[in-house]
């Protein structure tokens, strides 16, 4: 059974006077497998937060369905299965982290002993003890984010839904979050998170979905997405005259430029690059560099944002 299933989800907003209608989510469908780390990508306004809010019962969908481990997403039973970290989480300013974790434990119906155990394990994991008795009011962004993670973990839910968990964090904070997500996966949890930090997503996700204008434009395993594209190869060659290099480039329809290091050719695809390298060597060239240029998630992301021709 999938950890998360979203089928033909729509969300429509009307302005107060009902004249304007916005569709932040239109016909969205995807699944997240158990124990998977799923990166939910998209530009601002693409519908990521709206989808997450529907999964967490903050918004009601206009139509379509969403479920958590087969349980309807808007139900109490589904909410018991999820832990949610909103973007820029806010907590009661006058409470301390210890009181905050205890409060959420009470909302989950945990006994006093269970709540104490939760505090012990969560505070150890997130290093909350040094700030245990400080009020949230003066907390930095990183401290709030750590506490937010702690709140999402109260009750040991199976599915963690994180909205931009790395936004605004410094490199150390981002690394901590990455390690935490790895740890959660090791513990058998499913992590569904939205992010703009594509480098981090590439490192920690099993699968990603790219959302464009409320619908999923691309979805798949990160490794498949990165390797299914034709790689480009940069070939640097010495020992050719300028005219020879130019004619080789023209005959093979590849980009060419001359620099201090030699003649540089950019060839699409590994096979074509190999064949071209053989021709260059046959023409008396000396191979200096053969560098495949890998497609990054950012390249794919940017490609998906371009309007279809």
């Amino acid at each position, binding site marked *: 059974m999938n950890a998360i299933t979203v089928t033909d989800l729509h969300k429509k907003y009307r302005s107060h006077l009902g004249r304007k209608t916005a569709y932040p989510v239109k016909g969205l469908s995807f699944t997240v497998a158990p124990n998977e780390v799923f990166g939910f990508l998209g530009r601002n306004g693409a519908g990521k937060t709206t989808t997450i809010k529907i999964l967490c019962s903050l918004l009601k969908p206009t139509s379509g369905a969403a479920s958590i481990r087969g349980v309807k997403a808007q139900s109490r039973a589904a909410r018991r299965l999820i832990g949610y970290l909103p973007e820029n989480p806010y907590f009661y300013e006058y*409470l301390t982290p210890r009181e905050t974790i205890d409060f*959420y434990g009470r909302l*989950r119906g945990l006994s006093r002993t269970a709540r104490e155990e939760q505090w012990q394990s969560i505070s150890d994991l997130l290093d909350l003890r040094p700030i245990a008795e400080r009020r949230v009011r003066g907390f930095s962004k990183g401290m709030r984010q750590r506490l937010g993670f702690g709140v999402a973990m109260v009750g040991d839910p199976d599915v963690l839904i994180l909205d931009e968990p790395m936004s605004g964090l410094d490199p150390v904070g981002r690394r901590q979050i990455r390690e935490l997500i790895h740890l959660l996966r090791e513990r058998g949890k499913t992590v569904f998170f939205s992010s703009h930090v594509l480098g981090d997503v590439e490192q920690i996700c099993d699968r990603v979905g790219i959302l464009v204008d409320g619908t999923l434009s691309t979805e798949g395993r990160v490794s498949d997405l990165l390797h299914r594209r034709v790689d480009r190869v940069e070939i640097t060659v010495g020992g050719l005259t300028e005219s020879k290099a130019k004619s080789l480039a023209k005959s093979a329809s590849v980009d060419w430029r001359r620099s201090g290091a030699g003649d540089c050719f950019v060839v699409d695809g590994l096979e074509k690059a190999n064949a071209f390298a053989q021709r260059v060597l046959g023409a008396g060239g000396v191979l200096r560099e053969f560098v495949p240029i890998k497609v990054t998630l950012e390249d794919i992301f940017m490609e998906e944002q371009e309007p279809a021709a």
Partner: protein
Amino acid sequence: MIVLAVAHNTFREAVRDKVLYVLLFFSATAILASKALGWISIGQDIKIVKDISLAAVALFGVLIAIFIGTNLIYKEIDKRTIYTIICQPMRRFEFILGKYLGLAALLALVTAVMTAVASGYVLVLGGTLDATFFLAALLIYWELLLLTALAVLLSSVTSPILGAIIVFTAFMVGHATSILNELPDHISGVTRVMMNGAYYILPNLSNFNIRAEAANGIVVAPSYVAWAMAYGAIYTTVLLVLASLAFEDKDV
């Protein structure tokens, strides 16, 4: 229990807010300053002190009910603290009820403290206290419960400013609803029907006002107090049900 957890948290947040102590300070000052009006009413000073003290308890209680109550749900949405609450395995009405009960507990504390200050002051001035004085304080608290329920309803559907205006208007009109039912003959037709209708819809807050009896030491029948409390409880329940229904499908 989830409702109690929310109520406890609401109470704890409120008592840690300095604004509450500022309001309490002004309330205590108003009670102590009531003696000044007592000086200009020869031989009536204890009556005046009792009357003004109870009026101060009511007024500052209403101010707390309005300012905290109309912000109660709105602030949670505006500050986004609600995001991590509503996604918990709880029902939305439990949140509304918990927030309401937390504020009701705070108002109980505030009313008790202010009544204690007023009682102590009356005794220090050589006056005596009877049951009516405390029943008057109890009915003030009951009125605050009703107004708080109205504030919570408005807090879940509108902005705090508009909510505060409506609650304050309801407070003012609620103490003069008899005007709506005892209209002069020249008012007729639709206007008369509407004003009569408003009489039955608006809360009749004068039911909770036995301050004049308390100041003058007039005994009030327990059955009247019980009736007023039952009226308040029914009205409050209806308002809380409406607040829960308004919040049930709200996108946050």
